[in-house]
Structure formats: structure tokens, C-alpha cells
């Protein structure tokens, strides 16, 4: 690496941090390591499945920890085009 690049780049640590955060949030979900997230996932699945058919794997729950605020991200995939009237009636 040239002297110029050395002096003005931030190093590789931020990349490591970002890759780890993405990977671990995924792995925790898969392995059920994080208790809060896996129980939230179960609750959401139960609530949604009451109204629309929905599979276990299609509920994704992510938590980005931070200060002063954390973000809980919930993503539910439902197959096909959902008919709103029908779902309300069900």
C-alpha cells in the first residue's frame, strides 16, 4: 500500500464489524441463540398466521442495538397477492 493510501484510509476494522453484525444476526436467528428474538418471532408468527397463511421461515426479526435507540425490524413474507378484504373477513 502506498504511503498516501496508508495515511488516508480508515483501516479494515469497520468492514470486519459490519460483516460480523450481518452474519451474527442471521446465525442467531437460525440457531435460536437469542431468546428474546426467537420468542418475538414465534409471537409474530402466531399473530400473523391467525389471519393469513404464513410459514415459519418467512418471519424475519432483526434487532439493531444502539444508543440512544435500538431498531426492531420485522419482515414477514406472504406468498401471493394478499386480498385485503378476505384477510379481514377470515
Amino acid at each position, binding site marked *: 500500500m502506498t*504511503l498516501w493510501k496508508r495515511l488516508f484510509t480508515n*483501516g479494515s*476494522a469497520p468492514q*470486519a*464489524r459490519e460483516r460480523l*453484525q450481518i452474519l*451474527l444476526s442471521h*446465525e442467531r436467528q437460525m440457531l*435460536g*441463540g437469542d431468546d428474546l428474538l426467537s420468542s418475538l418471532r414465534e409471537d409474530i408468527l402466531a399473530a400473523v398466521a391467525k389471519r393469513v397463511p404464513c410459514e415459519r421461515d418467512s418471519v424475519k426479526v432483526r434487532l439493531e442495538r444502539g444508543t440512544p435507540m435500538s431498531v426492531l425490524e420485522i419482515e414477514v413474507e406472504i406468498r401471493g397477492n394478499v386480498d385485503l378484504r378476505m384477510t379481514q373477513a377470515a
Partner: protein
Amino acid sequence: MAKIITVTSGKGGVGKTTTTAALGAALARTGDKVVVVDFDVGLRNLDLIMGAERRVVYDFVNVIQGDARLPQALIKDKRLDSLFLLPASQTRDKDALTEEGVDKVIEDLSRHFDWVICDSPAGIERGATLAMRHADIAVVVTNPEVSSVRDSDRIVGILDSKTLKAERGETVDKRLLLTRYDAVRAARGDMLKTEDVLDILSLPLLGIVPESPDVLRASNFGVPVSIHDPDSAPARAYNDAARRLKGEDLAVEVPKQKLGLFGKFLRRAA
């Protein structure tokens, strides 16, 4: 009753055995009765790091199989009167450790010692889960590097599900020990920062042990690094960690690089 500590990490080569020996000696130095237990059946090394390799007569498996009594297998440290070692066997049979056998040995040890420190093998197989089974405190040894952090995260999940405490609905007190911390690489931004690792794993910090030739040197002599040269940076880090384990509220020092003006210039230009 003893406090049972398991030194674990998932990944190999991060410093579990060094840490077991160093924390054991550091705690024994304060007068507490300590036994360090090697769970790495087939690949024992704690005896070597403790400098007791030529005094092993009976081992953990001999005790479990009833070929020796526990006091016969315990090796007393040459330097510290209150420090003992229970070596692993060199047998290739990994199933030699049984759940009932381990339960019995740990129960006996915890009646006679203040601290039982279990040195876990790498991986997440039987040996590792047996080593963490009785843990009150888990010292999760992690290097500031992606694969080590990932494996530690995995181990944390297992600590929360496969220990006796977890089965009883309690939680193991998990502490992060950051080892092989390189202040030069940290300053250059090429190493995960302490805050990054703490944030990702969300564990309380037990200490930061700097990467240092003192660790290798102590292992060459077969002396736990915490008592080999008590003024060295890794020795201080381990002795402070031991004081934290004993409940002292001690701020963690982040190792800084020691460079003169010339060194600083070279580092920037490197």
C-alpha cells in the same frame, strides 16, 4: 462450595489454556485454593503450560474409571501451595469422559477448593459441553478478529442452553476476555475495537490481554504468565482479571502502544 469457572471460546488457539493457567495462578497467589482441570482429552497441554508435564502419574480419566483416587491424580504446583492441577489423559478415546463421571469429580473438587477452573477444548463437541456443564462463570476468550468473534457468539448460545444452570432456568455469568490485543494494529484501524467486540457479543468485559512475547516466554519456561514476570503487561492484565473475578470493581485498561517519536513516524509510514 467452590465457584466453578469454565474457560471457553469455540475457536482454537485463542489462549484458553494460557488463560486457565494464568487465572489459576493469579487467584492462588491471593491465598485461595484453586484447581485447574484439563478437559482436552487426547490433546492435553495444561500440564505443559503449568510446568508439571513430568509429574503426571494419574489423570482425569483414571479417576473417572476408578483406576485412581482423586487426591492421587491432583498435582500440586511447585511455586504456589494452594494451586493444583488435574491433568487430562492422552488417550485417544474421547468418550472416556462421561457425564456422571465429570459430575462426581467436579462435585468432589468443589468441596475442597475455592475455585475450580475448567479448561475447555476447542470446538463445540462433547468435551467442550462437558467442560461448561457445571459453570457458574464462563470466561469467553476472544481475539479481536472475525472468526474468533463468530465462534464466541456460538459458544454464548450454547452456554445459554446446554449448561446445568440453563437447565435449571438460571443463567451462567458470562465474561469476555479479549486476548492477543495488538495496540499497534488497533491504532491503525486494522483490528476490531474493544467496543465493537463488546457491542457485537454484548458481554461484560473481564479484561484485555495484550499480544506479547512474554506469553510465549512464560510457556517456554512452563510458568503461568501471571506469575512468571508479574510486572509484564499480560501478567498485570491477568492479575487484574482475577481481582475482578473476586468481585473487585476495577476499571479495564485498554493497552496502548509504547512508541517514541521515531516509532510513531515509522508506524504511520509503514
